[in-house]
């Protein structure tokens, strides 16, 4: 038994060494706790890391290190997905897009946090002070049930970015009034009151060729009125189309009605088709890149910052760059307001919109020690003082006492649109199949956006696909 004895001896030695090692780690972590975090690389997370390094003092007396992986947005899902599914168990804390919840909860990666909330009255109070639309979108799976998985990291909505120098020019104002018999929106309040019709007029009105005049100056390049995401990547047309569909009274497959709710007849209902057609109608007034199907949130933002469009609808998360003269040609000409909505026969505007933003989630392999520190960190992050600083530094807060404070709107020019947008926010699916739903839908929307098929065919195809997929998954009976 020579070989076997050798192996046995080796195994004993190895297990002894392992015991020593594990014991050593436990001992060390009583003093120093490292939280490894995956976050998208953009201002809201950079600010968070900066605040943490400068200000965070854990109440437990431990030394807490925040080890942050900043991942570029276009790769973010793929990288996080690869890390989670490969089983490397690298991250304790992940800034997750809200739609991912189902996929990663079902996979056993995201930790349910109801017990943490219930055990900590302070945290419970904080979660309850959150705007319900934000809490449902970022924390719940199944969507809008009291099963919590996430703490809001950065809440986000779509707002209208405008160029004051063009919109408020007296000649342009007069010409617009003469042409459409309405006032060209110029101030933040006027943009707030804007509906899709006015937005469309702005688009049509400001289509100028090279050599034409714009606000009294001769253009050296073509100029366009409006821009709004209509790209094939990730969710860069879903976010805009969903808003139109909802505002027209149509719908997407509603997971809260599973398993009796259907995709067929809802996704492709006449109202939904009407909403999609309305969106497609606006595309002809947008910069030509929209016809290539690659005008995503970054492209439209860049067009705006380069001074090629009068108005752009985009996430607040990207707005910081437009304020900086180094990255923006329009830094001193900005005006912000609510995203437009659909004016009903009663004159009221429906602004139902796809919510943006991300929650923090904890992973299931995070140790109790790390969880304790993570909760401490989240409580600090969601404390009014830090939330106010975050908003002042370009972030947003979904905590009522923070965003309803009068000083909130003075931080950044877009903050005035924040509180009023919140009530209108809705989210897409949180189900594990979301990425299949999303890619197929994006492919189909792309065909419509680039003029290959009409709205009805598009939504019929989507409905058929979703009905089939969700039936197989048991989510539709």
């Amino acid at each position: 038994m020579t070989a076997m004895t050798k192996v046995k001896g080796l195994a004993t030695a190895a297990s002894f060494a392992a015991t020593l090692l594990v014991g050593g780690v436990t001992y060390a972590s009583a003093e120093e706790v490292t939280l490894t975090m995956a976050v998208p690389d953009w201002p809201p997370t950079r600010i968070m890391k900066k605040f943490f390094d400068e200000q965070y003092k854990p109440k437990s007396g431990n030394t807490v290190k925040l080890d942050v992986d900043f991942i570029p947005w276009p790769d973010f899902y793929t990288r996080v997905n690869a890390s989670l599914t490969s089983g490397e168990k690298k991250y304790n804390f992940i800034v997750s897009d809200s739609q991912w919840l189902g996929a990663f909860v079902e996979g056993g990666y995201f930790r349910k946090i109801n017990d943490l909330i219930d055990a900590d009255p302070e945290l419970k109070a904080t979660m309850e002070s959150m705007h319900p639309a934000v809490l449902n979108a970022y924390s719940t799976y199944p969507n809008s049930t009291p099963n919590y998985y996430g703490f809001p990291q950065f809440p986000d909505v779509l707002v209208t970015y405008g160029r004051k120098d063009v919109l408020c020019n007296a000649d342009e104002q007069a010409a617009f009034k003469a042409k459409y018999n309405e006032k060209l929106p110029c101030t933040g309040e006027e943009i707030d009151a804007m509906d899709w019709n006015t937005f469309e007029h702005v688009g049509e009105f400001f289509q100028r060729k090279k050599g034409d005049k714009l606000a009294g100056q001769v253009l050296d390049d073509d100029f366009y009125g409006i821009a709004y995401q209509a790209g094939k990547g990730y969710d860069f047309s879903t976010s805009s189309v969903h808003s139109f569909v909802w505002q027209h009274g149509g719908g997407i497959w509603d997971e809260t009605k599973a398993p009796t709710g259907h995709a067929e007849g809802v996704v492709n209902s006449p109202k939904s088709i009407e909403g999609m057609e309305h969106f497609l109608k606006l595309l002809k007034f947008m910069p030509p890149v929209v016809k290539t199907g690659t005008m995503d949130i970054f492209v439209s933002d860049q067009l705006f910052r380069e001074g090629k469009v009068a108005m752009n609808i985009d996430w607040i998360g990207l707005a910081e760059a437009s304020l900086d003269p180094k990255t923006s040609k329009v830094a001193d000409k900005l005006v912000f307001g609510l995203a437009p909505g659909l004016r009903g026969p009663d004159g009221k505007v429906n602004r139902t919109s796809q919510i943006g933003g991300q929650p923090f989630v904890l992973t299931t392999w995070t140790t109790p020690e790390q969880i304790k520190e993570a909760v401490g960190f989240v409580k600090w992050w969601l404390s009014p003082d830090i939330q106010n600083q975050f908003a002042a530094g370009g972030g947003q807060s979904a905590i009522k006492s923070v965003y309803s404070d009068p000083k909130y709107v003075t931080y950044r020019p877009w903050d005035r649109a924040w509180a009023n947008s919140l009530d209108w926010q809705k989210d897409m699916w949180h189900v594990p199949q979301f990425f299949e739903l999303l890619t197929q839908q994006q492919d189909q929307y792309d065909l419509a956006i680039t003029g290959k098929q009409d709205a009805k065919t598009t939504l019929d195809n989507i409905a058929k696909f979703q009905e089939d997929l969700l039936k197989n998954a048991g989510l539709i009976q």
Partner: protein
Amino acid sequence: MTAVSSTLLTPRLTTVVAHNWKLAIAVAVVVSAISMAGLPAAVSFWVVGATAALVAAAFTVNAYRRHYFGALLVAPAIAVLFVMNIFPLLWSLGLSFFAYQANQQTIRFVGLGNYTRILTNDLAAHATWGALINTAMFVVFTVSAQMIVGFLLAILFAKQFPLRKYLLILVLTPMMLSVVASGVFFTYYYDPTFGILSYVINSISGNQFILMSNKVGAVAGIVFADAWMWSPFVMLLVLAGLVSVPKYLYEAAAIDRISSWRQFWMITFPYIRGLLMLALLFRTIEAFKLADLVILLTKGGNDTLTISYHLIRIANEQNKTSEGAAISYLMLFMVIVLTNLYLYLANRRTQGA
């Protein structure tokens, strides 16, 4: 070596000596089976690993005592190849017969279900076939563009002219750049608002020109970018062939007053044919796997989805691991068939000549 090895007698199965590999295998099988049945997966994983190491150790001792030194020297390479290449290949082949998703913990045997699904299911098969047809189209266009441009460049650079060395370095640069960098460069190049292409055409025609707004334009854009990047590679190979042609053959041909066209076919071409075939083979296999440029330039829009990008979406984004494995085996099969076809044709030509 054989004479020495025969001195070591093969032990009986039950004899416990370090080189008794049959016993090692028997022990490994029994211990693995018991541990898999009785221990939690995390522990049995290491037990099975240890038994595999035991078998390997027995084989090593056996080979050493029998003086099979050649085999011992090759063994590490074979082991690495097995662990890094063959095992994953077989593992994914196995996966393709199951319904498995990387982000869910369930697994179910479905036989050929994944293959029938990707080839015949009316929703999934449509995407697969569309992607395959697009891939074939890209293979034909990009490879022929690269072969022609690369070949012409090689003819040019085979001659001596001023600044040749520097121009050669310049021409080779695209090949050395990262694909992502070139892809981003081409997105701006083709952009209708910021790009120079639209700017030039707009100022000539007066109309707004958008290259990537239809299939023809999008394909042309991708093919151009790919040819820009990889023609230098073909050129490099062909150039190596061209400079290897002995000068005296041309001199003899000149004395015989043979036309330059015949010189090319009789002298130059036989020297570069093998290298041309090699370039064709390399580029075809690479073109078959085209995904990066498509992702960067169109995201698969305008019907430019290739099979590789389709595979990335299925396996990495949607986590349909086993369906992805089935698609990759479909791809592997096609590449192998294509490669063998090339080699067959190349060999037949050589024999015929």
